[in-house]
């Protein structure tokens, strides 16, 4: 087998494996987790009818979505109405291509495409995610979806700035945009949220923790805003906009929006994990070159971290109230943007001063 063929086959295996066997089941179980955790937070029991503890609920949900009538209202712009759900789902999943979700398994690096502009690729694809929502809002030809689409568009553009600026300190420190390098650096020097972990006596590490924590906070909040999660779920604020941009959608098309949101949550968490929480690294666990079992453990660690972050997403959703729209914009432009900007200078000063 020549190298090109084997490369194509291995890449396809990785894509199918990660997207269909991990991400999509994770998406459906994220819905289940959302319902279960929200129930437990609100002193309810949550889904417990289908299977033990309601564990087969996602399958039942999927059946329901597939069997419902796929209704297209008469007043919509047909072509774009059909296009929008795909545009909402695809970018959310595509982002995972550059994220290293494990070390190596049988000598194969566990990342689909290890390109040298990793994080920029993530932002580029994530910024395309807004089209699905904006087009859905516009094509529905109805006022509430339209308002939802407009809100979502302006919100995503606003928070993309903080998102992009928040990660600059990391790349100032590492000097490489490749996400595998980010993970490699964190293994050597301690996770980004604990930059002092590698070298306890060095004051630079302790000082660096300050900009890194700010980055982490700003980035995480911006991811909340980008994925339209509460407290930033203005685009689908039920009390104001009925269902927001997916008001006119039903059945599987609605499901695509719904699952796209969760897929975006998962990929967002994956990026946070990779950039700040050490990726697939867990202290004391060697990488995949020491045996395939460790490779599997690395992958498991990575997804366990994502699951922990998803829990935080859900936990926040069922704790905080929704922002008012002007507060949201103010927060994005006046607050986080400035913080992220100052943070870059702070990190640059520390890095130059200690010359790491």
């Amino acid at each position, binding site marked *: 087998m020549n190298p090109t063929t084997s490369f194509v086959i291995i890449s396809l295996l990785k894509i199918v494996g990660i997207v269909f066997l991990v991400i999509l089941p994770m998406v459906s179980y994220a819905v289940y987790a959302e319902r279960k955790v929200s129930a437990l937070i609100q002193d309810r029991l949550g889904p417990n009818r289908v299977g033990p503890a309601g564990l087969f609920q996602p399958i039942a949900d999927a059946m329901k979505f597939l069997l419902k009538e796929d209704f297209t209202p008469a007043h919509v712009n047909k072509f*774009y109405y059909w296009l929008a759900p795909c545009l909402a789902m695809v970018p959310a999943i595509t982002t995972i291509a550059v994220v290293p979700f494990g070390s190596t398994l049988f000598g194969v690096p566990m990342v689909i495409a290890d*390109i*040298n*502009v990793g994080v*920029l*690729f993530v*932002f*580029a*694809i*994530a*910024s*395309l995610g*807004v*089209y699905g929502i*904006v*087009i859905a809002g*516009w094509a529905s030809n109805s006022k509430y979806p*339209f308002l939802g*689409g*407009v809100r979502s*568009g*302006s919100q*995503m*553009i606003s928070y*993309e700035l903080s998102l992009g600026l928040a990660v600059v300190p990391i790349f100032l420190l590492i000097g490489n*945009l490749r996400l595998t390098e980010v993970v490699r650096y964190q293994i050597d020097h301690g996770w980004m949220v604990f930059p002092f972990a590698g070298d306890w006596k060095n004051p630079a590490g302790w000082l660096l923790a300050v900009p890194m924590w700010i980055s982490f906070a700003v980035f995480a909040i911006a991811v909340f805003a980008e994925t339209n999660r509460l407290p930033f779920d203005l685009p689908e604020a039920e009390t104001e906009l009925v269902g927001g941009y997916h008001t006119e959608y039903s059945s599987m098309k609605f499901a695509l929006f719904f699952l796209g949101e969760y897929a975006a949550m998962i990929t967002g968490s994956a990026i946070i994990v990779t950039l700040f929480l050490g990726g697939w690294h867990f202290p004391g666990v060697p990488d995949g070159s020491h045996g395939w079992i460790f490779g599997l453990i690395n992958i498991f660690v990575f997804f366990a971290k994502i699951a922990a972050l998803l829990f935080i997403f859900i936990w926040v959703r069922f704790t905080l109230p929704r922002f008012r729209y002007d507060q949201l914009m103010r927060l994005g432009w006046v607050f986080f943007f400035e913080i992220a900007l100052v943070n870059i200078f702070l990190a640059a000063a520390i890095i130059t001063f200690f010359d790491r």
Partner: protein
Amino acid sequence: MPSFLFWLFAIVMLVFGALVVINRNPIASALSLVVCFLGLSALFMALDAFFIGIIQVLVYAGAVMVLFLFIIMLLDLRAEERRKMNWFAFVGGFLVALSLLVQILAVIGSTRMAKQTFPPLASPHADDVRNVGLVLFGNYNLPFQVIAVLILVATIGVIVLSKRQLR
């Protein structure tokens, strides 16, 4: 990159570029332009210029076109859709564009560069992010900073002008 991919993306770019002009619906035009940008970025990436390709998507497709789309949607431009096609203008414009194309092809074809074949790059997988950074902040640092200030001035100017009109 296999040449069929080049042709695929080139054709996608050309078709959607033409659709930008042909489409009567402004939103459809804007979306065609987005697809055109995506094809362009794919071509950049084929040349191992990942950075430029990604920036193409990030800035143009991801930010500029969203703002365009936004404004088109908010203005709700329907006049363009209703307007009848002016065949005279269509044929005239087509002829002008065609003559321009012929001219450009003739000029490029006559230069020495077109006949020359370039040797492959010394290191095709160079770290283009690093190289772009070094050039921008090394050789062209001053112009870069000046441009940045210029854009800042333009931004502030727009805000000042729009605020004055409000009053």
